[in-house]
């Protein structure tokens, strides 16, 4: 079974973030593999392992000036990586991103495509389903567990009330939630092996998408960035055994009690 995992390289979410002059997220610093995507990589490795054959390919769109994040996925055990890197892709919207990913993945359709439910930086959460529609595939979002059995898919999908058991034929696209599996740490052997694994770098022209994607294709724009209303800190007391009573008095003052 062949599985493609869509992974994003992002600025470290723990570091302070900002928008640049053209209102795009500043991505000039070091890039890392989005933690949200490590669950998909782990899930893919487990599914291929269970199937006994096939391989995991990671596909990404973004700057290839730093591919440490992709090497990280390769070190975990993915066989190869493909990244579409092109200056004209700056300012892509989620549909544009999905078009690029569809063009790459459509070259050699896998049995299964895995994505995260949403990325850690843009978090629109719509790219995966747009991708499925462009590829003409069924999709199951918000998977808590994924099982492949006899050429079809069984997914427990998170719902408002609990979860649904969903079945789907393959090929299909699934988005996985954080915590579905425990992502492995790359071993020393894995890190060494990753250095020799193929990382294919493609341009927009290679995919025949010039003019259709990137800022030119985005058809939406940021008009303004303003400071949000901020809250003020109120009273603060150190608990001296009377913390609970103080809270009760506060709740009374706002008429909750």
């Amino acid at each position, binding site marked *: 079974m062949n599985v493609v995992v869509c992974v994003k390289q992002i600025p470290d979410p723990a570091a302070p973030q900002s928008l640049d002059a053209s209102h795009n997220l500043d991505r000039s610093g070091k890039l890392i593999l989005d933690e949200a995507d490590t669950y998909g990589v782990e899930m893919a490795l487990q599914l291929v392992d269970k199937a006994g054959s096939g391989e995991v390919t990671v596909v990404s769109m973004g700057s290839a000036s730093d591919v440490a994040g992709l090497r990280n996925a390769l070190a975990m055990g993915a066989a190869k990586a493909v990244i579409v890197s092109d200056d004209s892709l700056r300012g892509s919207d989620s549909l544009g991103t999905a078009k690029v990913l569809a063009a790459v993945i459509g070259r050699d359709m896998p049995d299964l495509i895995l994505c995260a439910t*949403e990325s850690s930086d843009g978090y629109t959460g719509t790219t995966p389903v747009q991708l*499925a529609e462009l590829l*003409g595939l069924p*999709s199951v979002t918000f998977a808590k567990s994924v099982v492949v059995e006899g050429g079809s898919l069984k997914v427990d999908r*998170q719902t408002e*009330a609990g979860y649904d058991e969903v079945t789907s034929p393959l090929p299909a696209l699934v988005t996985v939630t954080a915590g579905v599996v425990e992502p492995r740490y790359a071993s020393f052997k894995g890190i060494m092996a990753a250095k020799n694994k193929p990382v294919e770098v493609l341009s927009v022209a290679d995919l025949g998408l010039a003019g259709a994607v990137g800022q030119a294709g985005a058809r939406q724009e940021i008009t303004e960035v303003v400071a949000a209303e901020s809250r003020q800190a*109120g009273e603060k*007391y150190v608990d001296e055994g009377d*913390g609970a009573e103080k809270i009760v008095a506060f709740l009374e003052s706002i008429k909750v009690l």
Partner: protein
Amino acid sequence: MSITSLWVVVEPSQDSFTTTSLELLSHARSLATNVSAITWGSGATFAAQAGEYGAMTLYDVGALDGSLPGVPVASAIAALVQSAGAPDAILVPTSYDGRDIAGRLSARLDRPVLTNVTGLSDEGGLVTEHPVFGGTQTVKARFTGEGPGIIVVRAKSFVSESAGASTAAVVAAPVGETANTASARIANSHVEERTGPKLEDAAVVVSGGRGLGEAEKYSMIEEAAKLLNGAPGASRAIVDAGWVPYSYQVGQTGKTVKPTVYIACGISGATQHMVGMKGSKNIVAINKDADAPIFQIADFGIVGDVHKVLPALIEVLKTRA
């Protein structure tokens, strides 16, 4: 260009539309004279409610026969755009199925989506607001190409208000071509029992975080919430750790809550948590670290150990119950 027509995707739940659907309808009617709603499943039985909140027409996709809603509903809307003409924009609630519908529809119509929207106004065209960087800044955006743009709105962005209008006219909106994409089917639904008010509707929310130390201690949060007639919530740290289900999570990737009072216990106040609760009327925090960021937005803070303050609070509340 002023806004004349908006469509709103309204999601059926047990015995009404979801609260977010009604919030969107209420706001849509303040922006456009012509508001239509689109629903499926049992939705058509709530036509009176759709009308009451502002929809003149309720398009009904009908029974989905076990299909996940994303594909069939998006295909029905795409067919409607062809037959009835495009509205200025299509509003969709942020939810599991809402995001599926928006993504499918966007690719089908080749139209962009604006997501995580928390504000929407008419400034000679629709302008959306998106909180970024944990809600410290607001991005304003608009569509530049041909419509209809698709707008995915977060819960609690608008107030749901009945317009007292009469029932909406139900019009069938059949599913269009779906090829192989609609083949994902629900085989079984599991409902996790929860008592008390729903997290997103409760007037009091008591939330716990990693500061509770271990999963068993979450029972203190549940007990305090119950005594206050509220709902228990959680930070992502303890959801990812498996202490409580994802449906308890408050924040950027979880629920948005705006209760009368939000009580954060052993939660540090990461930006991604705060964006989901900083709209609360009052915020109370209990944290042993006097410098925890949560205190910067708390109206009332107790610097102390949750293992002492919470049991004491539960005792006092019990004597008053």
